[in-house]
């Protein structure tokens, strides 16, 4: 979620749109909000697919001997 306080001034930022009276928001404003949600969702899903730090270490800890790989 956009949390940068500088973004408050941006009329198209998540925080700004959320702070507006919803009855005054145009369809374009709500679509802008949806666009931000989709961008954040894509970032979140990408992070979810990345192996966690622990998993990465576990992989790095396996020696070639353990993997039984012949060079």
């Amino acid at each position: 979620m956009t949390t940068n306080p500088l973004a408050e001034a941006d009329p198209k930022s998540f925080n700004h749109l959320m702070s507006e009276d919803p009855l005054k928001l145009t369809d374009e404003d709500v679509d802008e909000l949806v666009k931000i949600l989709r961008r954040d969702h894509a970032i979140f899903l990408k992070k979810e697919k990345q192996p966690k730090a622990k998993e990465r270490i576990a992989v790095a800890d396996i020696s070639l001997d353990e993997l039984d790989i012949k060079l």
Partner: protein
Amino acid sequence: MISAYREDGLQIAWDSTSLSRLWECARKYYLYNKIGWTSQDPSPHLLFGIFYHKACERYDHSKAQGKSHDDALRDAIRQALVDSWGWSTDNKYKNRSTLIRTVGWYLDTFSDDPVRTIIFSDGQPAVELSFRFEAPDLKTNDGQPYFLCGHIDRLGVFQDHPWVLDRKTTKSALGDMFMAQFNPHHQLPLYNIAGKIVYHTPVKGVIIDGAQVLIEGSRYQRAMVNYTPRMLDEYMNSVKAVVKMGEYYAKLDYWPMNPTACHHYGGCPFRGICSKDPEVRDVFLRGKFKIDRWDPLKVRGDI
């Protein structure tokens, strides 16, 4: 128009909330349903759930009107923005920002939903359905029928079979543990039965759309639960026993505490009351709660 409570205070219309309270602790049921105490500030979990369901209902209505996913999503987000306007909470998980995000991400996640909402003959989509039916073979000691009631989120068709759909939000992890809690369950078999009795739909089971609401994002999981006819019979027998237990406690005019349940789900709201001497409990109740008795027959839907 029937009232959920008779003049003598006996509850004759039962929803899953009332049942679960009595199932869990007779004193909790007594304080909530018999006396009518409720928290002065509605819990963020409750408000979040109400706003979330209403936004999803708006989406279902818009889709049933033939709108595109994007147009229906805009309607849903607008609904959530309007409903939650002015809502302020210090809850990190369930607040206005996470609500808008959880609605938007959920509807996008299931934009190509293989479950088609049932459309009734009057053109209305089968969403947010309030139901009430006479409980079979269950009457008060003086012969008055009991009713079972509640609200179904949505009825839909999946692979040629009708299903009840229910949306749940949680901050706990999804996965097998989350889904395991729905069988056995205090609420969903009732919806399964209601789908069959009230809407004359041979419901196959219940589809649960779980949303995990985190600070940094929301995750979703869909699960299906089948209750066999024997399981549904067993559920109904348990419901009858619980309702009759309520009648017994009412006659006894004593509602025992169940101290083994005080610490469930982060603690019973009345834990701080029951831990006081009985002489002073009223003073503490008045300080922290207000009277607004739970009405299981309050109709939802039709936004």
